């Protein structure tokens, strides 16, 4: 326990000193919420009977989850692995699950901080009504974190080199973002893309989050989408465990 706490502290310290991680996880999502807030102002999207910015805030939260859950995690792990850091650590009595636990806890903490920041900025600067139950919001965000972290470790298992991991996680991130209904509803997409989009974890998470956070729907109404995200989580997790590599 003491060592796990120490690992979390280490990972936090590393995170705070990595400028690129700080940019992607904190500055990048905040930049987007401010940008879209200014662009759309009070414009209302009729088919949702929502202000555009209200539609977009949950999407930005999902995007933020993916910057730390997928991008930073995949490339960070692949890089530390490639540089032989885990190899050196394996000579010490540090257990590998403690090392991994420290990373996961720290990532999750960042995700909670990101979400909180976005909620605060969204409601204060753009008077977005967070009418839903915050407990459900937290639960959905946690499920999203689990799902994306599993995808990250699956990618890190599939991809050997740090360079490739960096590039591919970036592609996955952008694909999940643009096709995931983050910036525009996937109802705007052509038919064939929409089917693909509907199968993505980001799209489904986005829909659930918007429903419980903005539209004040019960979480039970969204069981189909939740099941989808849960499915992505379980399958990615199982594959990630199978393909996991420390060296």
């Amino acid at each position, binding site marked *: 326990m003491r060592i796990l706490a*120490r690992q979390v502290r280490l990972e936090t*310290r*590393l995170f705070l*000193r990595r400028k690129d991680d700080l940019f992607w996880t904190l500055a990048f999502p905040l930049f987007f919420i401010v940008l879209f807030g200014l662009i759309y102002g009070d414009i209302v999207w009729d088919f949702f009977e929502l202000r555009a910015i209200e539609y977009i805030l949950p999407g930005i939260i999902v995007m933020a989850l993916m910057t730390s859950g997928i991008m930073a995690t995949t490339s960070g792990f692949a890089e530390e692995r490639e540089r032989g*850091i885990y190899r050196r650590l394996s000579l*010490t*009595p540090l257990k590998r699950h403690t090392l991994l636990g420290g990373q996961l806890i720290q990532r999750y903490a960042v995700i909670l901080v990101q979400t909180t920041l976005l909620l605060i900025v969204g409601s204060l600067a753009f008077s977005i009504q967070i009418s839903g139950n915050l407990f459900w919001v937290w639960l959905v965000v946690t499920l999203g974190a689990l799902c994306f972290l599993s995808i990250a470790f699956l990618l890190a298992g599939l991809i050997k080199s740090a360079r490739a991991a960096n590039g591919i996680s970036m592609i996955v991130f952008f694909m999940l973002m643009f096709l995931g209904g983050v910036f525009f509803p996937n109802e705007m997409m052509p038919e064939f893309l929409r089917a693909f989009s509907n199968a993505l974890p980001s799209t489904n998470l986005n829909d659930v989050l918007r429903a419980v956070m903005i539209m004040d729907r019960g979480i039970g109404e969204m069981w189909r989408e939740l099941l989808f995200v849960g499915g992505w989580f379980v399958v990615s997790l199982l594959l990630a465990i199978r393909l996991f590599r420390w060296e």
Partner: protein
Amino acid sequence: MRTIQQMSTVVTVRNLSKRYGGLLAVDGISFSVEEGEIFGVLGPNGAGKTTTIEIIEGLRKPDGGEVSVCGIDALREPERIKELIGVQLQTTSLYEQIRVKEAVDLFGGYYRRAIPTSTLLEEVSLTDKRDSYVSQLSGGQKQRLALALALVNDPGVLFLDEPTTGLDPQARRSMWSTITGLKQKGKTVILTTHYMEEAEQLCRRVAIMDHGRIIALDTPEALIAGAGLESRIEIDHPSETLRSLLKQAELPARISDGDDKILLHTKNSSQVLKEITRMAADNDIDLESISVQKATLEDVFLALTGRQLRE
């Protein structure tokens, strides 16, 4: 043959083998390391040195053989070994964004007992760098930090894999004196190197490896003596009197006569030197420039394999 659990034996390796595809990287080697000695594994790149010590450290699994460290079966109980040994890998990578002091604290925290960080940084002369980031260190400083991390749990046995490769001569000497200091503290040190000077300077015993096998194992002096190699005595600008005296004297040496020097090849350099100085004293000859070059481990390797240690 020694038994595995002899009192003064710290590391025992028996019939160790490791195969990578079609290549036998380690080919059934056996040796043991005594408590308190600096044991060198010398050989060219690709000889199997690193594979061998990484198996002992628990980083790699062998295909066959036994390894015991401090009386513990290292292959069965690698976790128990970790508290007892210290390892400096050929290249130690660390998180670049942590400070020197933080790195030592971090590693110390993984062990049941740890040497205080300030003491350790003093020992490897990194005290003035304790607040620098790892990324800001020079190659030599990184090596010394790696050594500090290997020492953090005050281990009885240290494994140093090519500790001075890539260092400039000054950094190398400083590393040598640190390693000698470790021996004086009673630590057992197992190091690999492809520098024969390093093995000669530091090691009590040296195992010479080539193509996955140990082709010789003894003290550097015994290896050189055993290979039956000649030393070379060189006299620059000898006077004519000395030239003829040397040729007339029946020295146990082959003499080759050059224009401005004489070379004497001998297996018994001390006797030949004695004769020459006596001759010079009797005949009032100045021996202005005389030098003796003893055979080195490099020559031993050449004699054993027909190849240079470093191609």
